[in-house]
């Protein structure tokens, strides 16, 4: 059977619906284990305008069925990235690259996009809104409808490429915040980032992460993020990319069933480094077993 795994998100054609989640995979460092040309897309680590050194260690800690991290968006800054990293990425000729954009003010997001506009390898932008907003005393932009609106608008004004706004999951009303992003010009949404969490150590009586709190990811969060995707897909007419706790082809398929157009694999890239390839194979096997020729016929077919 000839299988069609391709999907389209706001005009962006992907050869299959499987990509990595930002910050959890690097095509160069995984090169001997994963061929990035086979992925639906490759999302790079979030970039800020200036270099950021990130938080002091420890930055990661394991919890039941998950991890909590506080990397602090360590990155080399957009300029250095374009100069050093982009040339290295060019060798992956068949790969579809998505840049991840971060900022400490709404304007910074726009500046990063502006700087990236000339880089032809990027086919879309994912806007990582889970950043401290310095203009608002450092509150997390992703939790603030006003900030989401400003950031989306600012970015939208700078590019005609697809703008994918990545939302935070731990909000009272995901649909409300998703709507703000869509109304401000987002072409698609990634749902969602990590959940604010805390891990402490009884012996030292201190938080384990230097940053005190961090973001929970991994299998633990899947049922919650699946609910978020379900709510947004039901309420709004916007393509959704799902990110949260995917460990297997079945998990990926569950998100597609609920209506996500594509999925991102994050934490599991640390555990089985070739998982994304395995998931693509698993999706194919499922399609064969269930007689599905085109994955688009399966997406969003949840019966409630």
């Amino acid at each position, binding site marked *: 059977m000839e299988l069609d795994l391709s999907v389209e998100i706001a005009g962006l054609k992907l050869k299959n619906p499987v990509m990595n989640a930002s910050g959890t*995979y690097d095509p160069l*460092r995984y090169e001997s284990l994963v061929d990035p040309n086979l992925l639906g897309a490759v999302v790079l680590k979030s970039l800020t305008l200036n270099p950021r050194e990130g938080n002091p*260690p420890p*930055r990661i800690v394991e919890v039941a069925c998950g991890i909590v991290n506080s990397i602090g968006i360590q990155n080399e800054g957009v300029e250095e990235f374009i100069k050093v990293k982009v040339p290295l990425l060019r060798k992956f000729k068949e790969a579809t690259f998505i840049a991840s954009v971060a900022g400490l003010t709404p304007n910074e997001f726009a500046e990063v996009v502006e700087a990236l506009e000339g880089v032809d390898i990027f086919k879309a932008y994912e806007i990582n809104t889970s950043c401290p907003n310095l203009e608002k005393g450092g509150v997390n932009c992703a939790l603030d409808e006003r900030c989401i609106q400003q950031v989306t608008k600012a970015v939208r004004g700078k590019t005609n490429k697809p703008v994918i706004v990545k939302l935070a999951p731990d909000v009272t009303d995901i649909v409300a915040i998703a709507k703000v992003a869509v109304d401000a010009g987002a072409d698609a949404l990634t749902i969602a980032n990590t959940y604010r969490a805390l891990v402490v150590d009884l012996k030292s009586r201190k938080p384990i992460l230097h940053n005190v709190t961090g973001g929970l990811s991994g*299998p633990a969060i899947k049922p919650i993020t699946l609910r978020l995707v379900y709510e947004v897909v039901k309420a709004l007419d916007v393509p959704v990319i799902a990110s949260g706790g995917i460990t297997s082809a079945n998990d990926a398929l569950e998100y597609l069933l609920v209506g996500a157009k594509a999925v991102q694999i994050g934490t599991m890239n*640390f555990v089985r480094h070739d998982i994304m390839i395995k998931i693509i194979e698993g999706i194919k096997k499922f399609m064969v077993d269930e007689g599905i020729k085109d994955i688009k016929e399966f997406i969003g077919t949840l019966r409630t």
Partner: protein
Amino acid sequence: MKLVECSVTHNLRVRPEYHILGLECGELGSIEPGQFITVSVDSVEMVLRRPFSIYRVFENRGVIEIFFKVVGKGTKALSELKEGMAVSVLGPLGKGFPLYEGVTAVLLSRGVGLASLALLGDKLKGLKSRVVTIASFKGRDADLASDNEYVKSFSDEVIVLYDEDRSSDVENVRYLLNKVKPDVVYTCGSKRLVRLLKELPYEAYVAWEERMGCAVGACRSCAVRTVAGYKLTCYDGPVFNVRDLIL
């Protein structure tokens, strides 16, 4: 670096809580002393793979050994593995120790940190360097060096220190090092020892330990502060010049 299913060849309990696990992995590629592997314990409840130094290599048999202490759930599970069971191994990872020919080298270990230095001792011996192993432990019942034929095989001298008789005190270690006057000192992740080595005039390297995510240099979880800003323990390390680290 490869991701392979290995099979357990042996799992020796050398002391209560200390195990040597043999893994038949076939060809992993060339292994530098100081490099490490990560093993997967369980991929749902315990999401993260566990990092361990490569303790010993039996090249002809495609077998490697790790030497670990049971400290938590993951190492507990590893201590219960039986011969023939499958374990997912990723490695070799990171950058190893710089090697020198015909020098006097001290391996200065603390506890099971010896595991990070043994393969190095073996290599240095082959390079005709003089190897003095100074191994410090809490007490005699945690002594992993005195009866260790492997360690003896590459060490020209083995000096064992204990907390219980205070021979492991920093001042005594300083005294011993100054007596040996090594060309190079190699140590593992004890902050106390790294601080001491920063004060002394000898060239010195440490196998650092930091909590890890991907272990291949992608996620930036394992940052360690150096004079050149944060470096990644898994990729830029785990071996660092002690003078480059900011503790």
